């Protein structure tokens, strides 16, 4: 009995030795954490709040997995649908939510859709009186601006209208196909 146990013991020891020997080898240059290169993707960090992953003609995909259709009003912790047609239709009422919030937001990032759209100067003046800084730009750049202003930790809200004209890259087409499980189909007019 004891000899059997002893044989099992030695067998186990050998097995364990075999296993652990693979894990004890660590390259010397990686012993220090500062030597490693690290990469963090901001959109995957959930502590920063809701960020925008992508946009399209239809709406926006957010970093918490949600998809919002149509124009949105986006805050660090919540997102709402926004009742606005085009950038010219923005009036005091459509912006009323942003200046009634507590704590007061520092910057309101307005994405006007396509690059040529204008926001009426009366509205800009009105928001200046309410002491909210505006950052008006096409939606393509407004999404990125909102993302990294949020990542920096500033009090920022976004009011974004989906663009109808935007640049599409091969990468965008491929990721859309992957999402739709459609990579094998050859499409003449890919919908992105």
């Amino acid at each position, binding site marked *: 009995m004891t000899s059997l146990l002893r044989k099992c013991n030695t067998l186990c020891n050998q097995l364990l030795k075999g296993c652990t020997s693979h894990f004890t080898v660590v390259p010397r240059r990686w012993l220090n954490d500062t030597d490693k290169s690290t990469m963090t993707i901001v959109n995957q960090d959930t502590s920063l709040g809701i960020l925008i992953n992508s946009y399209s003609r239809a709406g926006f995909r957010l970093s918490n997995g949600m998809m919002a259709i149509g124009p949105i009003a986006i805050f660090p912790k919540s997102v709402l649908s926004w009742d606005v047609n085009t950038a010219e239709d923005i009036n005091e009422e459509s912006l009323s939510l942003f200046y009634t919030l507590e*704590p007061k937001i*520092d*910057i309101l*990032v307005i994405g006007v859709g396509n*690059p040529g759209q204008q926001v009426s100067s009366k509205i800009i003046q009105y928001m*200046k009186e309410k002491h909210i*800084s*505006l*950052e008006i*730009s*096409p939606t393509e*750049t407004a999404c990125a*601006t909102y993302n990294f*202003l949020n990542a920096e930790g*500033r*009090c920022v809200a976004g009011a974004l209208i989906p663009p109808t004209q935007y640049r599409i890259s091969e990468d965008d087409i491929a990721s859309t196909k992957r999402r739709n499980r459609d990579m094998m189909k050859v499409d003449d007019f890919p919908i992105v």
Partner: protein
Amino acid sequence: MAASGRIIRGISSLFSRKCCSSFLPSKSPILSSNAILRYNTTESSPTIKKVDAVATSSLMDFGLYVAECMPKYVQKVQIVTGNELEVLVAPDGIVPVLHFLKDHHQCQFASLADIGAMDVPSRENRFEIIYNLLSLRFNSRIRVKSYTDELTPVDSCYEVFKAADWYEREIWDMYGVFFANHPDLRRILTDYGFEGHPFRKDFPLTGYVEVRYDDEVKRVVVEPVELAQEFRKFDLSSPWETFPNLRTLPAGTEEDLKATQTGPAKQ
């Protein structure tokens, strides 16, 4: 006797090499190549740039050639500070002239070194847009200048020089000059909610707002600027003349090169 005199002269010259040699009135050609006796050379003012008349005249010829090729837009050609060629164009002609300077075989100014702007509030068209081009092929530079006021947009030269992208964004941010057909005209240097165009002459040095960390709300707040001390302007001129040698320098003049065919114009 003569030999000893020569030896004495040799020794005295040795001494003068060590001591301050600017007191020696005579110019000795043997010692003029010596680095220590620079003061004794035949040059009158080695620190002032010499104007090469041949280079300047060929530069002026090239400037006139550009004016002949683009007569609709080029308003003036001038040479400033001795050897820098400037072409003044109407704002409608910025892109055609830049296209010409970039693509024409005799010009080949393929490198955009810089785009700058200048604000002169007293003028009607207060902003001057300045394009600096470099030709690697011919090793020469040229400056294209144009003008605009606060409201008139200028055509972007992004299609000619891709490098113009950020330069024009900077001019938009700092001066407020709008560039039409620019791919992405937005702020580049100022903060996100910043209002105003800082490089304009009527924008104050201290700005309009200041930022500080407010402990009550636990974040950075933006407030109107408050100077604890009034703005002091120091007058640093002294009662004594600092550059007596430059007492009689003439002011810069503009000379018409084509009419006189003499030296270059000074600006």
